[in-house]
Protein backbone atom coordinates (compact mmCIF):
# COMPACT_ATOMS: atom_id res chain seq x y z
CA UNK A 1 0.00 0.00 0.00
CA UNK A 2 1.04 3.59 -0.57
CA UNK A 3 -0.24 7.03 0.30
CA UNK A 4 -1.26 9.18 -2.64
CA UNK A 5 -3.33 12.29 -3.15
CA UNK A 6 -6.44 12.78 -5.24
CA UNK A 7 -4.28 14.86 -7.59
CA UNK A 8 -1.66 12.19 -7.87
CA UNK A 9 -4.18 9.46 -8.56
CA UNK A 10 -5.85 11.54 -11.24
CA UNK A 11 -2.47 12.10 -12.82
CA UNK A 12 -1.58 8.42 -12.72
CA UNK A 13 -4.94 7.58 -14.22
CA UNK A 14 -4.39 9.96 -17.09
CA UNK A 15 -0.87 8.67 -17.51
CA UNK A 16 -2.00 5.06 -17.72
CA UNK A 17 -4.69 6.00 -20.22
CA UNK A 18 -2.22 7.91 -22.39
CA UNK A 19 0.00 4.84 -22.39
CA UNK A 20 -2.80 2.46 -23.11
CA UNK A 21 -4.66 4.22 -25.87
CA UNK A 22 -2.94 6.29 -28.55
CA UNK A 23 -6.25 7.97 -29.35
CA UNK A 24 -6.32 9.66 -25.97
CA UNK A 25 -4.82 13.12 -25.72
CA UNK A 26 -5.12 16.04 -23.31
CA UNK A 27 -5.81 19.66 -24.11
CA UNK A 28 -6.29 22.71 -21.95
CA UNK A 29 -4.82 25.95 -20.77
CA UNK A 30 -1.42 25.66 -19.12
CA UNK A 31 -1.59 21.90 -18.69
CA UNK A 32 1.90 21.36 -20.12
CA UNK A 33 4.92 22.97 -18.48
CA UNK A 34 2.74 24.49 -15.79
CA UNK A 35 0.97 21.21 -15.10
CA UNK A 36 -2.48 22.77 -14.86
CA UNK A 37 -3.64 25.29 -12.29
CA UNK A 38 -3.98 22.51 -9.72
CA UNK A 39 -1.06 20.40 -10.87
CA UNK A 40 -3.05 17.42 -12.10
CA UNK A 41 -1.14 17.09 -15.37
CA UNK A 42 2.23 18.03 -13.95
CA UNK A 43 5.03 16.18 -15.67
CA UNK A 44 2.87 14.49 -18.29
CA UNK A 45 4.09 16.65 -21.14
CA UNK A 46 7.62 15.36 -20.52
CA UNK A 47 6.59 11.80 -21.15
CA UNK A 48 3.97 12.30 -23.85
CA UNK A 49 5.06 15.45 -25.61
CA UNK A 50 3.23 18.56 -26.66
CA UNK A 51 1.11 16.75 -29.25
CA UNK A 52 -0.66 14.66 -26.67
CA UNK A 53 -0.52 17.14 -23.81
CA UNK A 54 -1.59 20.26 -25.62
CA UNK A 55 -1.35 23.69 -24.10
CA UNK A 56 -3.99 25.90 -25.65
CA UNK A 57 -4.69 29.61 -25.85
CA UNK A 58 -7.51 30.99 -23.68
CA UNK A 59 -10.37 29.93 -25.93
CA UNK A 60 -12.73 27.71 -23.97
CA UNK A 61 -15.44 27.65 -26.60
CA UNK A 62 -13.17 26.54 -29.44
CA UNK A 63 -11.30 24.22 -27.16
CA UNK A 64 -14.38 22.24 -26.33
CA UNK A 65 -15.73 22.51 -29.87
CA UNK A 66 -12.52 21.16 -31.36
CA UNK A 67 -12.44 18.35 -28.87
CA UNK A 68 -15.95 17.41 -29.94
CA UNK A 69 -14.86 17.28 -33.57
CA UNK A 70 -11.80 15.23 -32.75
CA UNK A 71 -13.92 12.86 -30.68
CA UNK A 72 -16.42 12.30 -33.45
CA UNK A 73 -13.55 11.57 -35.83
CA UNK A 74 -12.19 8.88 -33.53
CA UNK A 75 -9.89 10.55 -31.02
CA UNK A 76 -10.56 10.47 -27.30
CA UNK A 77 -9.80 14.00 -26.12
CA UNK A 78 -9.63 14.98 -22.47
CA UNK A 79 -10.14 18.69 -22.00
CA UNK A 80 -9.24 20.54 -18.85
CA UNK A 81 -11.26 23.67 -18.09
CA UNK A 82 -9.17 25.49 -15.51
CA UNK A 83 -12.09 26.41 -13.24
CA UNK A 84 -15.62 25.16 -13.62
CA UNK A 85 -16.85 28.76 -13.69
CA UNK A 86 -15.28 29.09 -17.15
CA UNK A 87 -17.36 26.29 -18.60
CA UNK A 88 -20.06 28.92 -19.04
CA UNK A 89 -18.14 29.84 -22.18
CA UNK A 90 -18.55 26.37 -23.64
CA UNK A 91 -22.21 25.82 -22.82
CA UNK A 92 -23.24 26.19 -26.43
CA UNK A 93 -20.83 23.55 -27.67
CA UNK A 94 -21.77 21.14 -24.92
CA UNK A 95 -25.52 21.68 -24.98
CA UNK A 96 -26.20 22.22 -28.65
CA UNK A 97 -23.49 20.04 -30.12
CA UNK A 98 -21.99 17.34 -27.88
CA UNK A 99 -25.23 16.43 -26.12
CA UNK A 100 -27.19 16.06 -29.34
CA UNK A 101 -24.80 14.18 -31.59
CA UNK A 102 -25.73 10.65 -30.75
CA UNK A 103 -29.44 11.20 -30.64
CA UNK A 104 -29.61 13.00 -33.96
CA UNK A 105 -26.81 11.45 -35.97
CA UNK A 106 -26.03 8.24 -34.17
CA UNK A 107 -22.34 9.13 -33.88
CA UNK A 108 -20.35 8.79 -30.69
CA UNK A 109 -18.55 11.60 -28.95
CA UNK A 110 -16.04 10.14 -26.49
CA UNK A 111 -15.08 13.39 -24.84
CA UNK A 112 -14.06 14.00 -21.23
CA UNK A 113 -14.14 17.52 -19.82
CA UNK A 114 -12.34 17.67 -16.47
CA UNK A 115 -12.84 20.73 -14.33
CA UNK A 116 -12.36 21.85 -10.73
CA UNK A 117 -15.51 22.96 -9.00
CA UNK A 118 -16.35 24.31 -5.61
CA UNK A 119 -15.52 26.92 -3.03
CA UNK A 120 -13.64 26.99 0.20
CA UNK A 121 -10.50 28.67 -0.98
CA UNK A 122 -11.57 32.28 -0.97
CA UNK A 123 -11.27 32.62 -4.72
CA UNK A 124 -14.43 34.67 -5.10
CA UNK A 125 -17.63 34.55 -7.10
CA UNK A 126 -16.20 33.50 -10.46
CA UNK A 127 -13.70 30.89 -9.29
CA UNK A 128 -15.73 28.95 -6.73
CA UNK A 129 -18.93 27.79 -8.33
CA UNK A 130 -20.34 24.30 -8.68
CA UNK A 131 -22.23 24.63 -11.92
CA UNK A 132 -23.31 21.03 -12.56
CA UNK A 133 -26.88 22.35 -12.62
CA UNK A 134 -26.18 23.84 -16.05
CA UNK A 135 -25.77 20.30 -17.38
CA UNK A 136 -27.82 17.95 -15.22
CA UNK A 137 -30.93 19.13 -17.05
CA UNK A 138 -29.44 18.48 -20.47
CA UNK A 139 -29.88 14.93 -21.77
CA UNK A 140 -26.83 13.54 -23.54
CA UNK A 141 -24.13 14.50 -21.05
CA UNK A 142 -22.74 12.34 -18.27
CA UNK A 143 -21.99 14.22 -15.09
CA UNK A 144 -19.48 12.68 -12.72
CA UNK A 145 -18.51 14.08 -9.32
CA UNK A 146 -16.14 11.87 -7.33
CA UNK A 147 -15.66 12.55 -3.64
CA UNK A 148 -12.57 10.50 -2.83
CA UNK A 149 -9.20 9.81 -4.42
CA UNK A 150 -10.11 6.20 -5.18
CA UNK A 151 -13.39 7.16 -6.77
CA UNK A 152 -11.74 9.92 -8.74
CA UNK A 153 -9.47 7.37 -10.36
CA UNK A 154 -12.08 4.67 -10.75
CA UNK A 155 -14.59 7.01 -12.33
CA UNK A 156 -12.03 8.73 -14.53
CA UNK A 157 -10.98 5.33 -15.86
CA UNK A 158 -14.56 4.68 -16.82
CA UNK A 159 -14.93 8.16 -18.30
CA UNK A 160 -11.92 7.45 -20.47
CA UNK A 161 -13.68 4.40 -21.88
CA UNK A 162 -17.06 6.06 -22.34
CA UNK A 163 -18.43 6.86 -25.76
CA UNK A 164 -20.41 9.85 -24.55
CA UNK A 165 -19.46 13.34 -23.45
CA UNK A 166 -18.53 13.29 -19.78
CA UNK A 167 -18.32 16.28 -17.53
CA UNK A 168 -15.91 15.31 -14.77
CA UNK A 169 -15.94 17.45 -11.62
CA UNK A 170 -12.91 17.62 -9.39
CA UNK A 171 -13.61 19.53 -6.22
CA UNK A 172 -10.77 21.90 -5.41
CA UNK A 173 -10.65 20.95 -1.76
CA UNK A 174 -10.22 17.29 -2.61
CA UNK A 175 -7.00 17.66 -4.56
CA UNK A 176 -4.69 17.41 -1.55
CA UNK A 177 -6.70 14.56 0.02
CA UNK A 178 -4.67 11.40 0.65
CA UNK A 179 -5.69 7.79 0.34
CA UNK A 180 -4.13 4.36 0.84
CA UNK A 181 -3.97 2.52 -2.42
CA UNK A 182 -2.22 -0.60 -3.64
CA UNK A 183 0.43 -0.31 -6.32
CA UNK A 184 -1.16 0.48 -9.64
CA UNK A 185 -4.56 2.00 -10.06
CA UNK A 186 -7.70 1.19 -8.12
CA UNK A 187 -10.37 -0.68 -10.07
CA UNK A 188 -12.58 1.24 -12.52
CA UNK A 189 -16.03 2.15 -11.24
CA UNK A 190 -19.19 1.95 -13.28
CA UNK A 191 -21.30 5.06 -13.76
CA UNK A 192 -24.68 5.14 -12.07
CA UNK A 193 -23.73 3.32 -8.88
CA UNK A 194 -23.85 5.40 -5.76
CA UNK A 195 -21.68 4.48 -2.80
CA UNK A 196 -22.99 3.96 0.68
CA UNK A 197 -20.25 5.90 2.38
CA UNK A 198 -21.63 4.99 5.78
CA UNK A 199 -24.52 2.77 6.69
CA UNK A 200 -27.13 4.02 9.11
CA UNK A 201 -30.73 3.61 10.11
CA UNK A 202 -32.03 6.92 11.41
CA UNK A 203 -31.60 9.32 8.55
CA UNK A 204 -30.21 9.37 5.02
CA UNK A 205 -27.81 12.11 3.98
CA UNK A 206 -27.22 12.35 0.23
CA UNK A 207 -24.24 14.28 -1.11
CA UNK A 208 -21.71 14.39 -3.91
CA UNK A 209 -18.36 15.91 -4.69
CA UNK A 210 -16.97 18.07 -1.88
CA UNK A 211 -20.04 17.67 0.31
CA UNK A 212 -19.54 13.97 0.93
CA UNK A 213 -16.66 14.56 3.30
CA UNK A 214 -18.78 17.05 5.23
CA UNK A 215 -21.61 14.54 5.44
CA UNK A 216 -19.28 11.83 6.69
CA UNK A 217 -17.84 14.14 9.29
CA UNK A 218 -21.33 15.07 10.38
CA UNK A 219 -22.25 11.40 10.64
CA UNK A 220 -19.42 10.82 13.11
CA UNK A 221 -20.66 13.67 15.29
CA UNK A 222 -24.22 12.40 15.02
CA UNK A 223 -23.19 8.89 15.97
CA UNK A 224 -21.73 10.28 19.17
CA UNK A 225 -25.20 11.63 19.87
CA UNK A 226 -26.82 8.31 19.10
CA UNK A 227 -27.99 9.15 15.60
CA UNK A 228 -26.99 6.70 12.89
CA UNK A 229 -26.88 8.49 9.57
CA UNK A 230 -26.62 6.67 6.27
CA UNK A 231 -24.41 8.71 3.98
CA UNK A 232 -24.85 8.23 0.26
CA UNK A 233 -22.22 9.48 -2.12
CA UNK A 234 -23.88 9.77 -5.52
CA UNK A 235 -20.63 9.54 -7.47
CA UNK A 236 -22.43 10.28 -10.74
CA UNK A 237 -25.35 12.67 -11.19
CA UNK A 238 -26.07 11.54 -14.73
CA UNK A 239 -26.77 8.70 -14.69
CA UNK A 240 -28.30 8.99 -11.25
CA UNK A 241 -28.52 5.90 -9.10
CA UNK A 242 -32.09 6.48 -8.02
CA UNK A 243 -32.46 2.95 -6.71
CA UNK A 244 -29.79 3.23 -4.03
CA UNK A 245 -31.04 6.61 -2.91
CA UNK A 246 -34.62 5.46 -2.75
CA UNK A 247 -33.71 2.29 -0.88
CA UNK A 248 -31.96 4.34 1.77
CA UNK A 249 -34.86 6.77 1.96
CA UNK A 250 -37.26 3.88 2.43
CA UNK A 251 -35.09 2.42 5.13
CA UNK A 252 -34.57 5.58 7.18
CA UNK A 253 -37.75 7.49 6.34
CA UNK A 254 -35.92 10.77 6.65
CA UNK A 255 -33.68 12.38 4.07
CA UNK A 256 -31.35 15.35 3.94
CA UNK A 257 -29.86 16.37 0.61
CA UNK A 258 -26.69 18.42 0.72
CA UNK A 259 -25.67 20.52 -2.24
CA UNK A 260 -22.83 22.96 -2.79
CA UNK A 261 -24.60 25.57 -4.85
CA UNK A 262 -27.53 27.93 -4.42
CA UNK A 263 -30.59 26.26 -2.99
CA UNK A 264 -33.01 27.28 -5.72
CA UNK A 265 -32.84 25.37 -8.96
CA UNK A 266 -30.16 22.93 -7.87
CA UNK A 267 -29.83 19.24 -8.55
CA UNK A 268 -30.97 18.38 -5.03
CA UNK A 269 -34.48 19.25 -6.18
CA UNK A 270 -34.29 16.52 -8.80
CA UNK A 271 -33.12 13.98 -6.26
CA UNK A 272 -35.91 15.00 -3.92
CA UNK A 273 -38.43 14.44 -6.67
CA UNK A 274 -37.04 11.04 -7.51
CA UNK A 275 -37.26 9.95 -3.89
CA UNK A 276 -40.65 11.45 -3.54
CA UNK A 277 -41.98 9.82 -6.67
CA UNK A 278 -40.75 6.41 -5.57
CA UNK A 279 -40.92 6.41 -1.79
CA UNK A 280 -43.62 8.88 -0.95
CA UNK A 281 -45.36 6.47 1.37
CA UNK A 282 -42.23 5.70 3.39
CA UNK A 283 -41.21 9.20 4.34
CA UNK A 284 -41.67 10.19 7.95
CA UNK A 285 -40.88 13.84 7.31
CA UNK A 286 -40.42 16.18 4.38
CA UNK A 287 -37.15 15.77 2.55
CA UNK A 288 -34.82 18.61 3.41
CA UNK A 289 -32.28 20.41 1.32
CA UNK A 290 -29.18 22.00 2.76
CA UNK A 291 -27.48 24.21 0.23
CA UNK A 292 -25.87 27.60 -0.24
CA UNK A 293 -28.09 30.62 0.13
CA UNK A 294 -29.36 32.11 -3.12
CA UNK A 295 -26.46 34.46 -3.70
CA UNK A 296 -23.06 34.47 -5.41
CA UNK A 297 -20.15 33.09 -3.39
CA UNK A 298 -18.38 35.95 -1.66
CA UNK A 299 -14.59 36.09 -1.39
CA UNK A 300 -14.11 36.95 2.29
CA UNK A 301 -13.37 33.78 4.19
CA UNK A 302 -15.95 34.32 6.89
CA UNK A 303 -18.66 35.09 4.34
CA UNK A 304 -17.71 32.20 2.11
CA UNK A 305 -17.73 29.84 5.07
CA UNK A 306 -21.18 31.10 5.97
CA UNK A 307 -22.40 30.22 2.48
CA UNK A 308 -21.06 26.73 2.05
CA UNK A 309 -22.78 23.84 3.80
CA UNK A 310 -20.49 22.11 6.27
CA UNK A 311 -20.51 19.28 8.77
CA UNK A 312 -21.89 21.40 11.59
CA UNK A 313 -24.76 22.67 9.51
CA UNK A 314 -25.51 19.11 8.47
CA UNK A 315 -25.60 18.00 12.10
CA UNK A 316 -27.95 20.83 13.02
CA UNK A 317 -30.20 20.10 10.08
CA UNK A 318 -30.33 16.37 10.78
CA UNK A 319 -31.17 16.93 14.43
CA UNK A 320 -33.93 19.30 13.47
CA UNK A 321 -35.18 16.81 10.88
CA UNK A 322 -35.33 14.21 13.63
CA UNK A 323 -37.20 16.62 15.84
CA UNK A 324 -34.39 16.82 18.33
Amino acid sequence: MRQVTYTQLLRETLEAALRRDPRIFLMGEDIGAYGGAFGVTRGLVKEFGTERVRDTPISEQALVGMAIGAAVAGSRPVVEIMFMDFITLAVDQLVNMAAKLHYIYGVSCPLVVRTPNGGGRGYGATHSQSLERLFTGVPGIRVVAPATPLDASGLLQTALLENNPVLFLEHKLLYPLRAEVPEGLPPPLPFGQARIARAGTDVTVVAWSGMVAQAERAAVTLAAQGVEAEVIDLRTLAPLDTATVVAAARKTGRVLLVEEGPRTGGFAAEIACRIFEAAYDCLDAPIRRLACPDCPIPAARNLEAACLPNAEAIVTEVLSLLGR
Partner: protein
Amino acid sequence: MDLLTCYARMLTIRLFEEAVERLFHEGRIGGTAHTCIGQEAVAVGVAAALQPQDAVTSNHRGHGHFLALGADPGRLMAELFGRATGYSRGRGGSQMMMDVRCGFYGGNGITGGSIPFAAGLALEAKMRGSSRVVVCFFGDGASNQGVFHETLNLAALWKLPVIFLCENNGYAMSTPVKRGLACPQVADRAAAYHLPSSRVDGNDLLAVRQAVAEARQHARAGQGPTLLECRTYRLSGHSRGDRREYRQAHEETEAWQREPILRFAAQLRDQQVADEAALRACQAEVRQQIEAAIRFAEESPLPEIADVATGVYA
Protein backbone atom coordinates in the same frame (compact mmCIF):
# COMPACT_ATOMS: atom_id res chain seq x y z
CA MET B 1 -15.54 14.71 -60.63
CA ASP B 2 -15.83 15.39 -64.36
CA LEU B 3 -17.32 18.60 -65.62
CA LEU B 4 -20.61 17.14 -66.70
CA THR B 5 -21.03 15.61 -63.27
CA CYS B 6 -20.31 19.04 -61.81
CA TYR B 7 -23.06 20.43 -63.97
CA ALA B 8 -25.43 17.68 -62.92
CA ARG B 9 -24.67 18.26 -59.24
CA MET B 10 -25.32 21.97 -59.51
CA LEU B 11 -28.56 21.24 -61.22
CA THR B 12 -29.49 18.69 -58.60
CA ILE B 13 -29.01 21.31 -55.95
CA ARG B 14 -30.98 23.93 -57.83
CA LEU B 15 -33.92 21.70 -58.56
CA PHE B 16 -33.86 20.22 -55.10
CA GLU B 17 -34.00 23.67 -53.52
CA GLU B 18 -36.72 24.85 -55.87
CA ALA B 19 -38.70 21.77 -54.93
CA VAL B 20 -38.16 22.54 -51.25
CA GLU B 21 -39.55 26.03 -51.68
CA ARG B 22 -42.53 24.69 -53.59
CA LEU B 23 -43.21 21.97 -51.04
CA PHE B 24 -43.13 24.51 -48.23
CA HIS B 25 -45.46 26.72 -50.14
CA GLU B 26 -47.84 23.85 -50.68
CA GLY B 27 -47.65 22.95 -47.02
CA ARG B 28 -46.32 19.49 -47.79
CA ILE B 29 -43.27 20.01 -45.59
CA GLY B 30 -42.94 22.05 -42.42
CA GLY B 31 -40.37 23.19 -39.93
CA THR B 32 -37.67 25.33 -41.42
CA ALA B 33 -35.13 25.23 -44.25
CA HIS B 34 -32.61 27.59 -45.76
CA THR B 35 -32.14 27.12 -49.47
CA CYS B 36 -29.01 27.99 -51.41
CA ILE B 37 -30.29 28.94 -54.83
CA GLY B 38 -27.54 30.88 -56.58
CA GLN B 39 -24.74 29.43 -54.47
CA GLU B 40 -24.45 26.06 -56.18
CA ALA B 41 -21.05 26.66 -57.74
CA VAL B 42 -19.40 27.03 -54.36
CA ALA B 43 -20.64 23.72 -53.03
CA VAL B 44 -19.86 21.79 -56.19
CA GLY B 45 -16.58 23.58 -56.81
CA VAL B 46 -15.45 22.49 -53.36
CA ALA B 47 -16.63 18.92 -53.78
CA ALA B 48 -14.85 18.69 -57.14
CA ALA B 49 -11.53 19.56 -55.49
CA LEU B 50 -11.74 17.02 -52.68
CA GLN B 51 -10.59 13.44 -52.27
CA PRO B 52 -12.66 10.64 -50.78
CA GLN B 53 -10.88 10.78 -47.42
CA ASP B 54 -11.64 14.47 -47.00
CA ALA B 55 -14.32 15.84 -44.75
CA VAL B 56 -16.76 18.73 -44.93
CA THR B 57 -18.68 20.56 -42.23
CA SER B 58 -21.69 22.65 -43.02
CA ASN B 59 -24.05 25.19 -41.50
CA HIS B 60 -27.77 25.95 -41.60
CA ARG B 61 -27.73 26.29 -45.38
CA GLY B 62 -26.34 22.88 -46.08
CA HIS B 63 -28.47 20.97 -48.60
CA GLY B 64 -26.16 22.07 -51.39
CA HIS B 65 -22.99 21.10 -49.55
CA PHE B 66 -24.41 17.67 -48.90
CA LEU B 67 -25.78 17.08 -52.40
CA ALA B 68 -22.50 18.24 -53.91
CA LEU B 69 -20.76 15.43 -52.03
CA GLY B 70 -23.19 12.95 -53.47
CA ALA B 71 -25.99 12.77 -50.93
CA ASP B 72 -29.03 10.80 -51.96
CA PRO B 73 -31.69 13.43 -52.69
CA GLY B 74 -34.35 10.93 -51.64
CA ARG B 75 -32.99 10.47 -48.14
CA LEU B 76 -32.31 14.18 -47.85
CA MET B 77 -35.85 14.98 -48.90
CA ALA B 78 -37.17 12.30 -46.56
CA GLU B 79 -35.46 14.11 -43.70
CA LEU B 80 -37.28 17.30 -44.62
CA PHE B 81 -40.51 15.33 -44.70
CA GLY B 82 -39.68 13.97 -41.24
CA ARG B 83 -39.55 10.35 -42.37
CA ALA B 84 -37.83 7.31 -40.95
CA THR B 85 -35.79 6.97 -44.14
CA GLY B 86 -34.30 10.45 -43.77
CA TYR B 87 -30.61 10.86 -43.08
CA SER B 88 -31.33 11.51 -39.40
CA ARG B 89 -34.42 9.29 -39.28
CA GLY B 90 -36.48 12.48 -39.04
CA ARG B 91 -34.76 13.58 -35.87
CA GLY B 92 -32.55 16.22 -37.41
CA GLY B 93 -34.49 18.12 -40.02
CA SER B 94 -32.96 20.45 -42.58
CA GLN B 95 -30.08 21.68 -40.44
CA MET B 96 -28.93 18.42 -38.91
CA MET B 97 -27.89 15.63 -41.23
CA MET B 98 -24.66 13.72 -41.46
CA ASP B 99 -23.21 11.01 -43.64
CA VAL B 100 -19.59 10.34 -42.87
CA ARG B 101 -19.33 7.84 -45.72
CA CYS B 102 -19.42 10.69 -48.20
CA GLY B 103 -17.38 12.91 -45.88
CA PHE B 104 -20.30 15.04 -44.80
CA TYR B 105 -19.94 15.78 -41.10
CA GLY B 106 -23.15 17.60 -40.58
CA GLY B 107 -24.87 20.93 -40.70
CA ASN B 108 -25.52 23.07 -37.67
CA GLY B 109 -28.35 25.20 -36.41
CA ILE B 110 -26.04 27.45 -34.44
CA THR B 111 -24.36 30.03 -36.64
CA GLY B 112 -20.65 29.37 -36.35
CA GLY B 113 -21.21 26.31 -34.21
CA SER B 114 -19.47 23.87 -36.50
CA ILE B 115 -16.33 25.93 -37.04
CA PRO B 116 -14.41 24.44 -34.10
CA PHE B 117 -15.89 21.05 -34.92
CA ALA B 118 -14.23 21.22 -38.35
CA ALA B 119 -10.90 22.12 -36.78
CA GLY B 120 -11.32 19.19 -34.42
CA LEU B 121 -11.77 16.83 -37.35
CA ALA B 122 -8.59 18.29 -38.80
CA LEU B 123 -6.77 17.88 -35.51
CA GLU B 124 -7.68 14.22 -35.41
CA ALA B 125 -6.58 13.78 -39.01
CA LYS B 126 -3.26 15.41 -38.32
CA MET B 127 -2.58 13.45 -35.15
CA ARG B 128 -3.48 10.21 -36.90
CA GLY B 129 -1.21 11.08 -39.81
CA SER B 130 -4.07 10.81 -42.28
CA SER B 131 -4.03 12.74 -45.52
CA ARG B 132 -7.50 14.09 -44.85
CA VAL B 133 -8.20 17.77 -45.39
CA VAL B 134 -11.32 19.33 -43.89
CA VAL B 135 -13.42 22.02 -45.52
CA CYS B 136 -15.39 24.17 -43.11
CA PHE B 137 -18.29 25.99 -44.78
CA PHE B 138 -19.61 29.11 -43.08
CA GLY B 139 -21.23 32.38 -44.05
CA ASP B 140 -20.12 35.99 -43.90
CA GLY B 141 -22.35 36.44 -40.86
CA ALA B 142 -20.76 33.53 -39.01
CA SER B 143 -17.39 35.27 -39.25
CA ASN B 144 -18.66 37.63 -36.55
CA GLN B 145 -18.99 34.85 -34.00
CA GLY B 146 -16.29 34.66 -31.38
CA VAL B 147 -15.73 31.00 -32.00
CA PHE B 148 -14.63 31.78 -35.55
CA HIS B 149 -11.79 33.83 -34.12
CA GLU B 150 -10.84 31.30 -31.48
CA THR B 151 -10.82 28.48 -33.98
CA LEU B 152 -8.85 30.22 -36.70
CA ASN B 153 -6.22 31.17 -34.16
CA LEU B 154 -5.93 27.62 -32.87
CA ALA B 155 -5.98 26.04 -36.31
CA ALA B 156 -3.30 28.44 -37.49
CA LEU B 157 -1.13 27.89 -34.43
CA TRP B 158 -1.32 24.16 -34.86
CA LYS B 159 -1.17 24.21 -38.66
CA LEU B 160 -4.22 22.05 -39.00
CA PRO B 161 -5.31 20.72 -42.39
CA VAL B 162 -8.51 22.71 -42.64
CA ILE B 163 -9.84 25.14 -45.22
CA PHE B 164 -12.09 27.84 -43.82
CA LEU B 165 -14.44 28.42 -46.67
CA CYS B 166 -16.65 31.44 -46.39
CA GLU B 167 -19.66 31.74 -48.65
CA ASN B 168 -20.03 35.48 -48.70
CA ASN B 169 -23.51 35.84 -50.15
CA GLY B 170 -23.79 39.48 -49.23
CA TYR B 171 -26.11 39.04 -46.29
CA ALA B 172 -26.56 37.44 -42.94
CA MET B 173 -30.31 37.10 -42.95
CA SER B 174 -31.21 40.78 -43.52
CA THR B 175 -27.87 42.25 -42.51
CA PRO B 176 -25.66 43.32 -45.40
CA VAL B 177 -21.99 42.52 -44.99
CA LYS B 178 -21.03 46.14 -44.52
CA ARG B 179 -23.25 46.40 -41.46
CA GLY B 180 -22.09 43.08 -40.10
CA LEU B 181 -18.36 43.29 -40.61
CA ALA B 182 -16.18 46.22 -39.69
CA CYS B 183 -13.68 45.19 -42.35
CA PRO B 184 -14.58 45.32 -46.03
CA GLN B 185 -13.86 41.68 -46.76
CA VAL B 186 -14.07 38.48 -44.81
CA ALA B 187 -10.65 37.57 -46.15
CA ASP B 188 -9.19 40.56 -44.28
CA ARG B 189 -9.64 38.59 -41.12
CA ALA B 190 -6.87 36.17 -42.06
CA ALA B 191 -4.27 38.72 -41.00
CA ALA B 192 -5.26 38.27 -37.37
CA TYR B 193 -4.03 34.68 -37.60
CA HIS B 194 -1.22 35.12 -40.06
CA LEU B 195 -3.10 32.93 -42.48
CA PRO B 196 -3.06 32.94 -46.25
CA SER B 197 -6.36 33.98 -47.75
CA SER B 198 -7.92 34.68 -51.06
CA ARG B 199 -11.12 35.88 -52.62
CA VAL B 200 -12.76 33.94 -55.36
CA ASP B 201 -15.74 34.46 -57.59
CA GLY B 202 -17.99 31.94 -55.96
CA ASN B 203 -20.25 31.75 -58.98
CA ASP B 204 -17.39 30.42 -61.05
CA LEU B 205 -17.17 26.73 -60.33
CA LEU B 206 -13.75 26.30 -61.84
CA ALA B 207 -12.30 29.19 -59.90
CA VAL B 208 -13.62 27.71 -56.67
CA ARG B 209 -12.29 24.27 -57.53
CA GLN B 210 -8.90 25.73 -58.32
CA ALA B 211 -8.68 27.76 -55.13
CA VAL B 212 -9.73 24.82 -53.00
CA ALA B 213 -7.29 22.52 -54.73
CA GLU B 214 -4.49 24.94 -53.94
CA ALA B 215 -5.55 25.38 -50.35
CA ARG B 216 -5.78 21.63 -50.09
CA GLN B 217 -2.20 21.24 -51.34
CA HIS B 218 -1.09 23.85 -48.84
CA ALA B 219 -2.76 21.93 -46.03
CA ARG B 220 -1.43 18.58 -47.23
CA ALA B 221 2.04 20.03 -47.24
CA GLY B 222 1.67 20.68 -43.53
CA GLN B 223 1.36 24.42 -43.99
CA GLY B 224 -1.93 24.75 -42.24
CA PRO B 225 -5.23 26.44 -42.94
CA THR B 226 -6.33 28.86 -45.60
CA LEU B 227 -9.21 31.31 -45.41
CA LEU B 228 -11.09 31.31 -48.71
CA GLU B 229 -13.80 33.86 -49.36
CA CYS B 230 -16.16 32.90 -52.16
CA ARG B 231 -18.33 35.78 -53.25
CA THR B 232 -21.77 34.72 -54.28
CA TYR B 233 -25.39 35.71 -53.84
CA ARG B 234 -28.37 34.04 -52.25
CA LEU B 235 -31.13 34.26 -54.83
CA SER B 236 -33.70 32.81 -52.48
CA GLY B 237 -34.99 34.25 -49.24
CA HIS B 238 -33.02 33.64 -46.06
CA SER B 239 -35.58 31.08 -44.97
CA ARG B 240 -39.26 30.58 -45.20
CA GLY B 241 -41.15 33.77 -44.44
CA ASP B 242 -38.41 36.12 -45.55
CA ARG B 243 -40.10 39.11 -47.19
CA ARG B 244 -36.74 40.37 -48.45
CA GLU B 245 -37.68 43.95 -47.66
CA TYR B 246 -34.07 44.63 -46.80
CA ARG B 247 -33.06 44.60 -50.44
CA GLN B 248 -34.45 45.88 -53.66
CA ALA B 249 -35.92 43.80 -56.44
CA HIS B 250 -33.45 45.08 -59.02
CA GLU B 251 -30.60 43.76 -56.89
CA GLU B 252 -31.93 40.27 -57.26
CA THR B 253 -32.69 40.70 -60.93
CA GLU B 254 -29.11 41.76 -61.54
CA ALA B 255 -27.81 38.91 -59.47
CA TRP B 256 -29.75 36.47 -61.61
CA GLN B 257 -27.59 37.61 -64.53
CA ARG B 258 -24.57 36.27 -62.71
CA GLU B 259 -26.06 32.99 -61.53
CA PRO B 260 -23.65 30.10 -61.81
CA ILE B 261 -25.50 27.35 -63.63
CA LEU B 262 -26.31 28.98 -66.96
CA ARG B 263 -22.83 30.39 -66.89
CA PHE B 264 -21.28 26.98 -66.40
CA ALA B 265 -23.50 25.51 -69.09
CA ALA B 266 -22.21 28.12 -71.50
CA GLN B 267 -18.65 27.23 -70.59
CA LEU B 268 -19.36 23.56 -71.21
CA ARG B 269 -20.81 24.34 -74.59
CA ASP B 270 -18.02 26.74 -75.51
CA GLN B 271 -15.38 24.25 -74.53
CA GLN B 272 -17.35 21.55 -76.26
CA VAL B 273 -17.51 19.41 -73.18
CA ALA B 274 -21.21 19.02 -73.77
CA ASP B 275 -23.62 20.12 -76.44
CA GLU B 276 -27.12 21.39 -75.88
CA ALA B 277 -28.57 17.91 -76.24
CA ALA B 278 -26.31 16.49 -73.60
CA LEU B 279 -27.22 19.30 -71.22
CA ARG B 280 -30.89 18.75 -71.90
CA ALA B 281 -30.54 15.06 -71.23
CA CYS B 282 -28.81 15.86 -67.99
CA GLN B 283 -31.54 18.28 -66.97
CA ALA B 284 -34.21 15.72 -67.69
CA GLU B 285 -32.41 13.13 -65.66
CA VAL B 286 -31.96 15.41 -62.68
CA ARG B 287 -35.57 16.47 -62.87
CA GLN B 288 -36.66 12.86 -62.70
CA GLN B 289 -34.30 12.22 -59.85
CA ILE B 290 -35.81 15.03 -57.82
CA GLU B 291 -39.31 13.86 -58.55
CA ALA B 292 -38.32 10.39 -57.49
CA ALA B 293 -36.80 11.85 -54.35
CA ILE B 294 -40.05 13.55 -53.45
CA ARG B 295 -41.99 10.38 -54.14
CA PHE B 296 -39.57 8.36 -52.07
CA ALA B 297 -39.86 10.82 -49.21
CA GLU B 298 -43.60 11.07 -49.31
CA GLU B 299 -44.07 7.33 -49.47
CA SER B 300 -41.62 6.64 -46.67
CA PRO B 301 -42.95 5.72 -43.25
CA LEU B 302 -42.98 8.13 -40.36
CA PRO B 303 -40.50 7.44 -37.60
CA GLU B 304 -41.73 5.24 -34.78
CA ILE B 305 -43.04 7.29 -31.92
CA ALA B 306 -42.21 4.55 -29.48
CA ASP B 307 -38.52 5.12 -30.13
CA VAL B 308 -38.60 8.84 -29.62
CA ALA B 309 -36.41 8.91 -26.54
CA THR B 310 -33.96 6.18 -27.46
CA GLY B 311 -30.37 6.62 -28.53
CA VAL B 312 -29.51 9.68 -26.48
CA TYR B 313 -26.38 7.89 -25.35
CA ALA B 314 -24.02 5.66 -27.29
